[in-house]
């Protein structure tokens, strides 16, 4: 449980439950004790620097790796390689996995057949899936001749085929052009809106920020932070107050120091302050300053970006630190 944060704000039963999850590869501890619940519906972001254990966690969740210790449940059923519930999970992990000698349609038909879809169901679902990822025009072309982006789209269609309850996506916009990225993000949003639970692992932080309702940030094989995105991002939320003159800022600094010692203060240039208070305290702060005839020119909420939170939580991990030095 050390280093792990369990998200217990979930009203309904979680789709995924991980308890004490550990995975060792020889001497390396890829995953080192994860406890995490992922609620039904929405997009759950899984973040972390390289080597944080994201892909290993995802692979355990997809029944591709045996955990060294701990348990994973999907829809209440224990997940291990070969578990029946895995038939209701779609995934795109790392590079697209396709049969290059088959057409886009036949690639989908192979997986649809394995999932037990009838020919009638396939006749509806396969063209619809291809249409949804923008490959309807090349349905008969062999996947081996596809560009990286087209293969990525086809792999997404495989992952979403047959309406799985849970879809695991590892870097789904890799190799896509900007239009493709926008289309895939739209697709993810649409599917989440239809009730599919999506776990999204990505290095593109704005993408995660834009798509995910909840996030977990991994570091050294553990969960460093987890919960609704706004809560995780809310950590370190501050009020920014700008004045017309530095004297006003100095007066406000003194006033707040005396009257609200529980709000740590920081100067932000000559005529502005950063107040460590919640967004809900903004009106109280404004009133307090007004009563002292100090009128701010601007009062706003400063939330850290996901990038800020990510860097704060992971910066001392070797990969991130190295990347930082290189940049």
């Amino acid at each position, binding site marked *: 449980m050390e280093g792990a944060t369990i998200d217990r704000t979930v009203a309904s039963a979680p789709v995924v439950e991980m308890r004490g999850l550990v995975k060792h590869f020889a001497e390396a501890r890829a995953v080192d004790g994860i406890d995490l619940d992922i609620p039904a519906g929405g997009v759950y972001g899984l973040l972390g620097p390289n080597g944080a254990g994201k892909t290993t966690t995802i*692979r355990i969740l*997809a*029944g*591709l*790796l*045996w955990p060294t210790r701990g348990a994973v449940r999907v829809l209440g059923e224990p997940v291990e*390689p*070969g*578990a*029946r*519930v*895995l*038939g209701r*999970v*779609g*995934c795109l*992990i*790392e*590079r*697209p*996995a*396709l*049969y*290059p*000698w*088959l057409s886009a349609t*036949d690639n989908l*038909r*192979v*997986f649809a*057949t*394995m*999932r*037990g879809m009838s020919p009638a169901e396939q006749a509806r679902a396969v063209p619809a899936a291809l249409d949804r990822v923008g490959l309807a025009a090349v349905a008969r072309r062999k996947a081996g001749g596809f560009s990286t982006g087209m293969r990525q789209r086809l*792999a997404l269609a*495989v992952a979403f085929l047959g309406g799985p309850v849970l879809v695991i996506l590892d870097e789904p916009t890799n190799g896509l052009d900007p239009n493709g990225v926008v289309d895939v993000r739209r697709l993810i949003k649409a599917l989440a809106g239809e009730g599919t639970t999506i776990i999204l692992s990505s290095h593109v932080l704005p993408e995660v920020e834009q798509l995910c309702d909840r996030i977990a940030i991994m570091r050294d094989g553990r969960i460093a932070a987890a919960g609704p995105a706004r809560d995780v991002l809310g950590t370190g939320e501050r009020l920014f107050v700008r004045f017309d003159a530095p004297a006003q800022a100095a007066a406000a600094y003194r006033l707040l120091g005396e009257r609200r010692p529980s709000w740590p203060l920081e100067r932000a240039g000559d005529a502005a302050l950063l107040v460590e208070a919640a967004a809900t305290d903004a009106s109280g702060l404004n009133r307090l300053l007004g009563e002292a005839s100090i009128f701010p020119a601007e009062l706003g909420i400063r939330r850290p970006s996901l990038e800020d939170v990510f860097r704060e939580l992971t910066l001392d991990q070797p990969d991130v630190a190295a990347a930082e030095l290189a940049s």
Partner: protein
Amino acid sequence: MKALLQADWIRYRRRLDLWVIVIGMLLFSTIGFLSGYHRDVTDPEQMTEAQVRQMVVDTSFFEGATQEEIDAQTEQLVHDWLDSQEQDRIRWDEEQKTTLQQYDLAQAPLTILGSGFGPLIAAFLIATLIVGDEFRHGTIRTALLAASHRRRFLAARLVTIGTITAGLFALVIALGWLLSLGLHAVGAELAPPTELVDAGAAFGLVGAEVLAVLAAVGLGVAMTVLLRSGAFPLLLGIVYAFVELFLANLPIFAPREPLAGFQQVFLTYEVQRLVRTLAESSNAIAFRQGFGENGEPLGLLPLWAAAAIVAAWLGLFVAIADRRVRRMDIVE
């Protein structure tokens, strides 16, 4: 299971490499059959009397002999040579009455099966191709997820490969008949059938060949999932067969040695014995000739035990593959 087999049908019916292997095997079997016929139908070259005389004159040395003695001895040598050549021709013609029966309708399917290791090599290649594909393209991830049940996934693969193997045998047998019909159609020289094929033993022979090929398939599948590659097993399969054959001939396994007969548990040894014994019982001429007179196996165990040993090897390979597939971490 049915769904997995249907998926395999979609997956492999358009796999070009698979068809190349099948067509290649049929081509090599055809070449083996026809070149065998050409060898068996072509009479050995006969030297004329003049050629023999010239050869005798060129190669003989008559020291201190008179011309009359030289002429007499030369005549004797030429006569002996021609006589020996005639005896060889008569023996050859006699043998042809048997050997050419290999290409008649009754013997042709067994002949084409015995003309090489075509189906065995093809089945081994197909096994490593089909299972190796999943690792090579990373589709093992999505396929296992879609199939969900790993043992069923492997079972479907084995059924698919087994079906293809059975199909290969059917194709080779049909090819044997077709080629024999072709020889009849073009009026090729064939001997009247006197060596009657025993249907039961011939069925057993084909069964033994299928069992041997399935054991090779099991070995291929087990090695592919162990090594997560379709390429290495091809090399290791050949090494395995040679190592077994080498070990089986070691003096420590000779009669009256402490380990006498131990080689009977070896796969290749028992496959040979099983096939050879059944080939003789079925009057399969090609198999009989292929094994020759020497190298008689010890044959301490009954035939059913030989089949059981081969089946046990197959079971072992499948068990290894099964355990590996169920327990392995998929990192592709």
